[in-house]
C-alpha cells in the first residue's frame, strides 16, 4: 500500500497544483517541496518495509480480459531507483528557489507528474504498465522544456520528443509481439516465454528494445537530440532529463532487454558495446574543447551512460552492479553539476568558459562543493564515481580486454575536460564578470550539501548500495543464463 502512496502523493500534488493555477510562485514552490519531501519520506518508509519483507507487490486488474494488470513491485533495483528519484526531486525543486517562473503552479505540477511517471517506470511489473509510464514520463518534461526553455527550446525539445517516441514505437511492437506469444503481460513470466524463442526472433527483439532505450539514454549514434535538449531546457528540466529520465533507458536495458532478449544479447552484445564505448570516447572528446559549460556536462553525461550500457551488456555481475551504482552516482552528480552551472549563470549571465575565471577567490564554499562533485564525476576513489567506474571497467575488461582497455580511457579523458572546466571557471584571475561573485547560501547550500555528502558516502560505504541490488541483479543474470 505504501508503494501506491509513492505514486499517489506526487500525483495528487501535481493535479492539485494544476487546479490551483492562480497561486503565487512561492506558495507553489513550498507545496511542491512539501509534497516531494513527503514522497521521499514515503520512499524511506518503503525501504524499511522492504527490509522486513523483501518482496513488495501490489496488483489490481487493469484490463482483466487481457490479463493486463496494474502491477507494481519492488526488488532491490527498483527500490534503489525509487529512493534515488524521491531523493532528487526535492533537491531539483529546491534548486529553483531563488528563481521565479511564470505560471509557477503549472511548472511545479509538471515536475511532480514526472516524478509519478518515473516511480511508475521503476516499479512496474506489467510490461504495458511499464510502457505507459515510460512514455508518460516524457510528456511533462517536454512541456517543461518547451515552454520554459531557452529561445530554441521549442524546436529542440520537439525533436527530442519525436525522436524518443520514434524509438518507443519499436518498443511497443516488441512488447505486443512478446505479449501475444506468452499470453501474459507480467515481465517475469515473459522472460520464460522469451527464452524459448528462436535466436532470430530474439535478435529482432533485441534491436527493437535497444533502439528505444538507446535513444532515451542516449548512446551513439542516437544522441544527436541530447546536447541541444540538455542545454536549451531550463535547468530543472535538464536535471530531470539527465539525472532521471536517462536512467529509464538504462533501467530498460536491465529490466527488459536482458531478460526478454537473452539470445539477442549474447549475439549482438559485443557489437553494441563497441558502439556505446565509441560513444563514450566520442562524447569525452567533444567535451574537451567545449566552452559552453552546460553543453560540456551534457557531453559528459552522454559519455557516462555509454559506459553504463556497455557494462550491462557484459551480462556479468560486476558490469551490472557497476552500472547500477553508477546510475545513482551519475544522477546525483549530474544534478549537482547542472545546478552549479545554473548558479554560475544566474550570477554572471554567461555559460561561456572563455568569459569566466577566478570565481574560487570569492567562494570558498562553492569551491568545495564543486570540487567534491567534480571528483565524483572523474571517479576519484572514495567518491561515488569510483565504485561505479571500477566495477564497470572490470566487468567490461573481463568480457573483452580490448574493449575494457579502450573504455578505460574514460578515466583520462574525463579528467581532461573536467579539470579544464574547473580551471577555466573557478581558477585564474577574476574579471569584471566574476569579480562580484557571491558565495552560495540558503537554499543553494540545501541542495549542494546533501549531494556532496552522498558523493562521499557512496564512495566510502558503497556496500550499502551494492548489497541492496545484488540479489535482484543476480536474479536477472540467472534468467539469461
Amino acid at each position: 500500500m505504501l508503494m501506491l502512496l509513492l505514486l499517489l502523493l506526487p500525483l495528487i500534488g501535481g493535479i492539485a497544483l494544476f487546479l490551483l493555477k492562480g497561486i503565487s510562485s512561492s506558495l507553489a514552490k513550498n507545496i511542491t517541496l512539501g509534497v516531494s519531501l513527503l514522497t521521499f519520506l514515503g520512499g524511506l518508509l518503503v525501504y524499511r518495509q522492504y527490509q522486513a519483507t523483501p518482496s513488495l507487490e501490489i496488483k489490481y486488474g487493469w484490463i482483466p480480459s487481457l490479463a493486463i494488470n496494474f502491477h507494481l513491485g519492488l526488488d532491490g533495483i527498483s527500490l534503489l531507483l525509487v529512493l534515488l528519484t524521491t531523493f532528487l526531486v526535492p533537491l531539483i525543486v529546491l534548486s529553483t528557489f531563488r528563481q521565479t517562473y511564470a505560471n509557477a503552479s503549472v511548472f511545479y505540477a509538471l515536475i511532480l507528474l514526472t516524478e509519478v511517471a518515473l516511480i511508475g517506470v521503476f516499479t512496474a511489473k506489467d510490461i504495458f504498465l511499464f510502457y505507459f509510464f515510460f512514455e508518460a514520463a516524457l510528456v511533462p518534461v517536454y512541456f517543461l522544456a518547451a515552454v520554459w526553455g531557452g529561445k530554441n527550446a521549442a524546436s529542440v525539445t520537439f525533436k527530442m520528443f519525436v525522436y524518443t517516441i520514434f524509438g518507443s514505437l519499436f518498443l511497443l511492437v516488441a512488447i505486443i509481439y512478446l505479449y501475444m506469444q506468452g499470453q501474459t503481460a507480467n515481465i517475469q513470466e515473459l522472460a520464460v516465454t522469451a527464452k524459448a524463442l528462436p535466436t532470430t526472433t530474439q535478435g529482432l527483439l533485441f534491436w527493437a528494445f535497444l533502439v528505444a532505450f538507446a535513444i532515451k539514454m542516449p548512446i551513439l549514434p542516437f544522441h544527436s537530440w541530447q546536447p541541444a535538449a540538455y542545454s536549451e531546457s531550463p535547468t530543472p528540466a535538464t536535471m530531470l532529463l539527465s539525472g532521471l529520465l536517462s536512467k529509464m533507458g538504462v533501467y530498460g536495458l536491465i529490466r527488459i532487454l536482458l531478460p526478454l532478449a537473452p539470445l539477442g544479447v549474447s549475439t549482438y552484445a559485443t557489437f553494441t558495446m563497441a558502439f556505446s564505448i565509441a560513444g563514450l570516447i566520442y562524447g569525452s572528446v567533444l567535451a574537451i574543447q567545449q566552452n559552453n559549460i552546460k553543453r560540456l556536462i551534457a557531453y559528459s553525461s552522454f559519455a557516462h551512460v555509454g559506459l553504463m550500457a556497455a557494462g550491462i551488456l557484459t551480462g556479468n555481475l560486476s558490469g551490472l552492479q557497476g552500472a547500477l551504482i553508477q546510475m545513482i552516482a551519475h544522477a546525483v552528480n549530474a544534478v549537482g553539476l547542472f545546478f552549479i552551472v545554473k548558479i554560475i549563470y544566474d550570477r554572471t549571465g554567461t555559460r561561456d568558459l572563455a568569459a569566466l575565471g577566478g570565481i574560487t577567490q570569492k567562494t570558498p564554499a562553492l569551491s568545495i562543493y564543486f570540487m567534491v562533485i567534480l571528483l565524483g564525476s572523474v571517479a576519484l576513489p572514495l567518491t561515488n564515481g569510483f565504485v561505479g567506474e571500477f566495477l564497470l571497467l572490470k566487468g567490461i575488461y573481463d568480457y573483452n580486454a580490448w574493449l575494457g582497455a579502450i573504455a578505460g580511457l574514460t578515466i583520462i579523458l574525463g579528467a581532461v575536460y573536467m579539470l579544464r572546466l574547473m580551471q577555466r571557471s573557478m581558477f585564474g584571475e577574476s574579471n569584471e564578470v566574476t569579480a562580484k561573485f557571491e558565495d552560495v547560501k540558503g537554499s543553494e547550500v540545501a541542495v549542494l550539501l546533501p549531494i556532496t555528502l552522498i558523493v562521499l558516502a557512496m564512495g566510502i560505504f558503497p556496500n550499502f548500495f551494492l548489497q541492496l541490488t545484488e540479489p535482484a541483479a543476480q536474479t536477472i543474470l540467472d534468467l539469461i543464463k
Partner: protein
Amino acid sequence: MQSFISLLPFFPLIGFLINGLGFRKIPKGLVGPIGIGAALLAFIGTVVAYNELQANGGQPIIISLFDWITVGSLNIPFAFQIDQLSILMLFVITGVGTLIHVYSMGYMSHDEGYGKFFAFLNLFLFSMLLLVMGNNYIVMFVGWEGVGLCSYLLIGFWNKNFNYGNAARKAFIMNRVGDLGFLIGIFLVIQNFGSVVYGDVFQKAASLEVGNSAVVAITFFFFIGAMGKSAQIPLYTWLPDAMAGPTPVSALIHAATMVTSGIYMIVRSNVLYTLAPGTLEFIAWIGVATALLAASIGMFQNDIKKVLAYSTVSQLGYMFIGLGVMAYTSGFFHVITHAFFKALLFLGAGSVIHAMSDEQDIRKMGGLWGKIKITAITFLIGTIAISGIPPFAGFFSKDEILAHTFAHNKLMWALALVGSFMTAFYMFRLFFVTFTGSFRGTHEQEHHVHESPASMTLPLIVLAALSVVGGFLGFPEVMHLPHTLNDFLSPIYEGSRTVNPEFGKLHIDHSTEWLLMGVSVAVAVVAILLARSKFAGGKNVPVADDEIMGFQQVVYNKYFVDEIYNKLFVNPIKQASVFFEKVLEPKGFDALVNGVGAGVVLISERVRRVQDGKITAYVFAMAIGIIIILGVNFGYDIIELLKRITTASK
C-alpha cells in the same frame, strides 16, 4: 594498541578537516600547530606500530576496518597491513613529513592561503599513508589517486596563475595515464588470483613458474602505473612542471614521498616481479634511459628548482635500475637516502628563494655562502650526499645499486656510471653558481638577503644530519659491518626466495666490489673538480637564454619532448574535439537523423499522399494517442484486433 595504529592515517585526515573547513576562521596561530600536530601524531603512531610489529615477531599485522566493495565472490576489504616494508615507508613519510610541516610554518607564513596549505598537506599525508598501509591493491590505489589529487591541488596552489593551473592539470592527467595501466593490472590480478589482498595474491603467486605470462602482463601494467607516479620515460614530463607548487610541496611530494610510490609498489609486489624477469629487464633499461636523459637536462638548467626536479627524475631512474636488476632492497635503500638528501636540497632551495625575495634563477644569485650560512652548509651536505661521496648517505645506496648492476650487465653499469658523473657535475655546478662568487642580484635583493627563521633552518639541520648518517642503514658486504636494512626487510622477500632460489645473492668477489666502489667515487670526484674548475668563485656564470647555442639549446629545451607530445597527442585530440563539434555533429549525426526524417516524409508523401508533410507532427499526435489509449483503458480493442490479425495470419 591496534586501534591506535588503525587511527594512524586518520590523524592527518582530521587535521585536514579542521584546517580545511575552518579555513579563514581558525586563528593563524593555531593552524600550524594543528597541521604539525596531526603529522606528529602520525609519526608517534608509526613508532607504536613499529614496536607492535617487533612484539609480533615480525609477522605482518592486519587491521580490518570494514568490507568496502563486495561483488559476488570478490571482496575488497578496507584493511591495513603493517609489515617491514610499510613501517619503513611510514617512518619516511611521517618523519620527513613532520619536518616539512614545521618548515612550512615559516615558509608559508605570509601566504593568504596559509590554512588551506596546511589542510592540503595533511590530506596528502592521509592519502600517502593509505597508499602504504593498505593490505590490498585497491586501497593502495585509493592512496595512489589520493596523492595524485593532493599533488594537483598543491601544484596549482597559486591557481590564479594560469600556467601553474596548467602544470597541475598536466600532472594529474599524465598520472591518470599511468593509473589506467595500474587499473588494468588490478583487473588482471583479480582474473588470475581471484583476490586483491596481498597475502592471498602472493601466496598463490609463489607456486607459479618463472615467466608465467599472466604475471608478466600484470607486472608490466603495474609498471605503467609506476612510470606515471614516479616520473619515468615516457611519463616524466609532469614532474619538472610540478615545481610550480610551493617549495615545501616539491620537497615532500615531488621528491621524498609520492614520487617513490612506484618503487614501493614494485617492492611490495616483489614476488610477481621475480616471476617476470622480462619485465624487470624492461624496467632496468627504462631506469637507465630516464636517469641519463634527466641528468643531461639537469646539467643545463638555470632554475634552482628545475635542476633539482630533473635530478629527482634521474635519481628515481636509479631506483628503478636497482629494482630492474632484482636488487629490490638497494632500490628501496635509495628511496630512503634520497628522501633525506633531496628533501634537504629542496628545503635548502626554498630557503635560498626565501632569502632572494622569490628569485629562482641561479644566474642572478651567487656569493650566498657567507650570507646564509646554515642554508649554505646544509645544502653542501645534501650536494655531497647526492654526489655519492662516502660516508654520506647517497654513496651507500647508489653504490649498492651500481654493484648489482655490474653483476647484471656491464654496459648498463657503465651507463649508470655516466649518469652519476653528470649528477655530481650538475649538483656542484648548482652549488658553486649559487653560493660562491659575487652577488649578481639587485641591490634591493642584496639588502634583503637574510637567513631563514628557526622553523625553516631546524628541519634543514635534522635532514642534513640524516643525509650524513642515513647510509649506515646498509653497509656493503665487504666492510664486514651489518646491513641493517637487508636484515630488516628480509621477511617481505619470502615469496621471491621461493620462486627463485638465487634471489638476493650478489655474485661478485670482494676485490671487484672494492674496485667498483673506487671507480664510482673517482668518477664523482672528477665531476666535482670539473664543476669547480668551471664554476667555482663565479668564474663562469651560465649564459643568458638567447646565447645558448647548438646542441646545448636542444638540451636546455628539454629535447623538445613537451612540444613533441603536444604535436602527437594534445593537439590532435583538441582538433578532433573541434572537428566533432563543428562538423561531425551537425553534418553527420544530426543530418543523418534529419535525413531519416525527411526520407520518411518523402516516402509517406508518395505512398500515402500525406499532404502536410509534417511527419513529426504526425508521430507526435500518434504518440499522444497511444498514451491516451493505453491510459484510458481503450487498449482492449486495439490489442484484440492485432491479436486477431496475427492469429489469422498464422
